[in-house]
């Protein structure tokens, strides 16, 4: 992906990671080369929207439609930033 300066960030899952639903534990997981991260609550849905096409405001809008009244505008951007700092989103 080539980022043009000034182009908004379109989060995508880093290639080393696999996002999957764990049917045995009924939760979403991020699987890495040497780790498994359990995604609590709606975190898996948020990560699922990080497909490299949506901008952060785009992801926020989609979630706001799905969950009217939830504080997505406040929580989601900082959550995505955290995942980026971990190197899990590019």
């Amino acid at each position: 992906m080539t980022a043009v300066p000034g182009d908004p960030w379109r989060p995508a899952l880093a290639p080393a990671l696999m996002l999957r639903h764990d049917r045995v534990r009924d939760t979403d997981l991020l699987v890495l080369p040497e780790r498994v991260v359990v995604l609590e609550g709606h975190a898996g849905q948020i990560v699922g929207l990080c497909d490299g096409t949506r901008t952060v405001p785009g992801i926020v809008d989609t979630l706001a439609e799905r969950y009217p009244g939830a504080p997505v505008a406040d929580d989601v951007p900082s959550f995505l930033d955290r995942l980026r700092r971990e190197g899990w989103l590019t």
Partner: protein
Amino acid sequence: MTVPRPAAASPEPPRPWALLAELTHACPLHCPYCSNPLELARRSAELTAAEWADVLRQAADLGVVHTHLSGGEPLLRPDLERIVAAAEGAGVYTQLVTSGTGLDEDRLSALRAAGLRSVQLSVQHAEAAANDRIAGRPSSFAAKERAAALVRRAGLPLGLNVVLHRDNLDTVGALVELGESWGVDRIELANTQFYGWGLLNRAALLPTREQLARARETVEHHRERLAGRVELVWVVPDYFDGIAKPCMGGWGAVSLTVTPDGTALPCPAAASLPDLDPPNVRDRPLDWIWDRSPAFARYRGTAWMTGPCGTCPRREEDFGGCRCQAYALTGDAARTDPACALSPDHHVVRALTDPDAGVTPPLYVHRRPGAVPQVR
């Protein structure tokens, strides 16, 4: 691997997260620290690809989400692609653990097409000649270098995996720089764990305290320098630290191992326990093995503990250390791991780590079928 902590004691054992699949004991290398058993499984006894596919499906149903495809050298299996595809089909993340010998461009692209997710490459020393001497195979360093470049070009995550001992500990800085120059994402510096061939060669492999102290300092320096770029993992030398390792995250708690001939073990070294009577995936379904087999129940939880472990506040953190080590050093697998400074047997370990002055360490025996007379 690091995984979420298992939940506290429940009537049903916790679900396993990971499977170590030892696909073959055959290996073109002959590392003296190899943790494979002295009695290596014959090729003719190995599980077929169809049997592995079945094991992987059952493992996924049980909760396994991650598998290390290991050995020996898994690339020696011509049907490795089928095994990778079966794992991917079952939703299990695959990591190939390889020495690099036998990985060319065609093989890697076939493995990638089958769904391979990541690669862990072992290296024995930062210098080619010393690497090949320890591995007991000429040109094995060159093969590793090529393999690393191929994996990088394919865009797969790459980890470097170094087992540390007397013969390479002083070059730990050069090993980190080697990993950096190969473009790896992660470097695991694992002080030798003494099982199988490693146990046989223990006296030759044990470093000195001074070596370890210097290596630790070097690793700390590089860790700061590489923060955010390359993950540096230091697997502690439990013999020296006086602290037992939380082996496998607990017996039958987080992961299981299946050996080339289908033996299912709570830990890769557990084949050394003479009266464990481990189940085999050819005879029993995996859920029975995990939930019901006496071998997996044996040291699960804390009720079996003896000695200082029984009342120790750390028992839920380190599970009393390693059962195989307790057996290797005391002859009783239920005793406190002698690596722990609180163990009544800790002097056994101290005698090994702090030998009398003037004792010269022996030479090591390279891992080769038939290299040692069988004792059993």
